[in-house]
């Protein structure tokens, strides 16, 4: 049966067909939908959202050590978190197959960097497969499990945004259980990486490398397509599709495995064609290896960009060089950009309004709230990786003056805190820190699509489970001052943050407000607010909240004056269809010009 599937759905299908028993992940764009799909469609597979990628990999290792096929999925930067177990998993090897799926994000559509995770394959000395569409994504996951068991190695499969989030046609097949029996069997010299055993296992890794080097020479997914022999293109993954799109008649060496590389096959390709180009996204990973073999590459990173995503146009431009003719633009005026924004009614907006007003230095983290760094909120000052906000706030407050210390806070989302924030909070408690940390608890991993986490009270399959209480956790980690605020209530939030940051002790504040997009879970939305056009002075305070429901309307003539006779250039307008009635703008208006529905202010929303 044929279906159109996204790369992520196809990866999930591949795991199902391969007889995978255990799948774990932490959500991260562009990988999140793999586990979403497994949980929704394939009940044969145990699935979990792990608190972070390291834990996901360690649990998958446990499953594979007793013979189960295990899949673990993460975005590119998630592999950094999982790198500690990964590099030594390369030594222990596996029993049941283990595939680590890394979904890279060239162009940084939804990431903090665009690192090229092909380097991890060489670094960890484990083979890496690179699918170029959904059919291959499914097949390469299955091949990955076979290679994993045949060579006693974990296998990485590398997707990118344009594979994970593109839909292409896939031929579905039946599930086949994995070949390895599941049983507990002790084997300390393989699984206990004491130095004495680790040294032996490193030898096994190097021997494995030599066997893999032979294997990739005849691996059918390393494929030569000989057409026009003037030009041969070496490529892999999505870059193959872009190159074929614009130069379908050239010859190709399409590499299904990007590490280790098939030296002899590459040498044969050079013999067959007159000149060779290497087309690859991001780093010159293949190009450098090919050059190190002593071959000359006619076009490589000197012609194709090292940053950002490739496109058919960029491949054409790189190959055509000076002969390239760009399409003629028909419209060249600059247009107002439309960056992503916090939603109308978002609980983060009230909190960041307070932090901006108080002129705090805000150590930030990864999530929707990172958008608070953009105008007009401009109130987030660092963002590097998951959990870093707490360490940043701690480090800053250890070195600045006592007065400045009171102006430093760390903010971190609920899911992000559980991912990487618990141990740095322990650091603050242990090392007598004084920072104030605010957990933005919106009861969801919102940015990636509302996945459950250890504090939502539900598993990936919606079963009720233990729910982590942040304040209890803060208490046992040594945080003395523990508070909760409703971020839609400006006065309360301002008061609590003001008091806590004054203290010479660490504080943990939970800013609790459900994500406004949790449509099914929210008890009720409120009626929209409206502007009293007689009173509005056009002061722009409400506009500076950056709420998409509030806009500026220039006025002139009779309208350029308020009922009280004050001059104005414009007024604020609330778009009724967008306003969920959170009440924030009403609280910041000094002229009573924002009218609550039915005269009553309700501070935000609650879960049913």
């Amino acid at each position, binding site marked *: 049966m*044929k*279906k*159109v599937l996204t790369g992520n759905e196809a990866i999930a299908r591949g795991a199902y067909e391969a007889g995978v028993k255990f799948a774990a992940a932490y959500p991260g*764009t*562009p990988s*999140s939908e793999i586990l979403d799909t497994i949980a929704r469609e394939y009940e044969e597979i145990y699935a979990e959202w792990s608190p972070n990628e390291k834990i996901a990999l360690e649990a998958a290792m446990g499953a594979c050590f007793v013979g189960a096929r295990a899949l673990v999925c993460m975005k590119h930067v998630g592999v950094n978190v999982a790198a500690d177990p990964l590099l030594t998993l390369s030594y222990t090897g596996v029993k049941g197959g283990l595939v680590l799926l890394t979904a890279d994000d060239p162009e940084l*559509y*939804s990431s903090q960097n665009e690192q090229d995770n092909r380097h991890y394959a060489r670094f960890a000395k484990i083979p890496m497969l690179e699918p170029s*569409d959904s059919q291959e994504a499914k097949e390469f996951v299955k091949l990955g499990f076979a290679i994993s068991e045949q060579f006693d190695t974990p296998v990485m499969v590398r997707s990118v*945004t*344009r594979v994970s*989030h*593109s*839909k*292409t*046609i896939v031929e579905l097949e039946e599930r086949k259980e994995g070949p390895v029996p599941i049983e507990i069997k002790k084997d300390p010299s393989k699984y206990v990486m004491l130095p004495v055993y680790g040294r032996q296992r490193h030898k096994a890794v190097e021997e494995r490398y030599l066997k893999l080097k032979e294997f990739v020479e005849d691996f059918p997914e390393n494929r030569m397509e000989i057409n026009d022999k003037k030009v041969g293109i070496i490529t892999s993954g*999505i870059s193959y*599709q*872009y190159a*074929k*799109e614009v130069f*379908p008649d050239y010859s190709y060496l399409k590499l299904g495995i990007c590490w280790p590389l098939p030296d002899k096959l590459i040498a044969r390709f050079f013999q067959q064609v007159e000149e060779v180009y290497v087309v690859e996204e991001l780093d010159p990973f293949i190009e450098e290896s090919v050059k190190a073999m002593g071959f000359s590459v006619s076009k490589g990173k000197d012609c194709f960009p090292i940053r950002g995503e490739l*496109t*058919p*146009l960029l491949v*054409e431009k790189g190959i055509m060089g000076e002969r390239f003719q*760009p*399409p*003629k*633009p*028909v*419209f060249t*005026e600059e*247009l*107002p*950009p*439309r*960056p*992503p*924004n*916090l*939603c109308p009614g978002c609980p983060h907006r009230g909190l960041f309004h307070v932090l901006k007003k108080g002129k705090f230095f805000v150590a930030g983290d990864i999530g*929707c709230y*990172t*958008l608070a760094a953009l*105008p*007009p909120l401009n109130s987030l000052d660092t963002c590097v990786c998951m959990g870093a906000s707490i360490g940043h706030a701690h480090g800053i407050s250890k070195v600045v003056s006592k007065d400045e210390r009171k102006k430093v806070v760390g903010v971190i989302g609920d899911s992000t805190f559980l991912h990487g924030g618990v141990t740095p909070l322990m650091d603050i408690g242990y090392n007598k820190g004084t920072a104030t940390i605010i957990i933005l608890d919106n009861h969801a991993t919102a*940015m*990636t*699509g509302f996945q459950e986490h250890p504090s939502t009270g539900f598993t990936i399959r919606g079963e009720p489970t233990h729910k982590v209480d942040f304040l209890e956790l803060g208490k046992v980690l040594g945080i003395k001052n523990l508070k909760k605020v409703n971020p839609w209530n400006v006065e309360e939030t301002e008061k609590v943050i003001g008091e806590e940051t004054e203290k010479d002790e660490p504080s943990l504040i939970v800013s609790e407000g459900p994500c406004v997009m949790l449509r099914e879970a929210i008890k009720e939305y409120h009626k929209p607010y409206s502007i009293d056009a007689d009173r509005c002075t056009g002061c*722009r305070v409400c*506009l500076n909240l*950056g709420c*998409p429901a*509030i*806009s*500026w309307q*220039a006025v002139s003539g009779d309208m350029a004056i308020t009922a009280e006779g004050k001059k104005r250039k*414009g007024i604020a307008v609330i778009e009724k*269809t967008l306003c969920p009635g959170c009440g924030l703008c009403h609280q910041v208006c000094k002229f009573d010009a924002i009218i609550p529905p039915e005269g009553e202010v309700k501070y935000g929303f609650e879960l049913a």
Partner: protein
Amino acid sequence: MENAVTNILISGVGGQGIILASDIMTEVFLESGFDVKKSEVHGMAQRGGSVTSHVRYGSKVYSPIIKQGEVDILFSFEELEGLRWLNYVKPDGVILLNDYKINPPAVNLGQVEYPGDIPGIIRKRFHKFYLIDGTGLALKAGNIRATNVVLLGAISNLFEIEETLWIQTILRHLPPRLHEVNKQAFAMGRAQIKA
């Protein structure tokens, strides 16, 4: 369409139902026997920001994204987002635009004006241009969220594909309580263009 692959670029604002519309188109082309690919970006890019979805079908499709200048049909759910991708369209391409504006942040803040007379700008450059009141018709059909289905009804005229296949595919993606509204929305959109 004489070329082997037809390229459709769908544009709009996160939350307008663009991904569902492109899913439906993709399935319709698959069931009509074509090779088909589509591509879009999720995550941070979707929080009310500009959104595009590339849909390509034909005998054999390689790239999931369309080369700039090769768009056969620009299908925009919002005026400014239609204007933004004009340079991707072939000189003889078709443009189908929803007559609807959503202010970007700089316009909301009063820093710049929303570009004026976008339909006029497009009409001057492309003669195959259709302006559809998708949002107005969806309200008439009884649900503003059926805008995408009205627009699918309109664009369906551009392909030689049975109307029933479109309707079946759309209904498969919706709960039964929304079927009547959406059938009507599709019919209203379909009546807007005579290809």
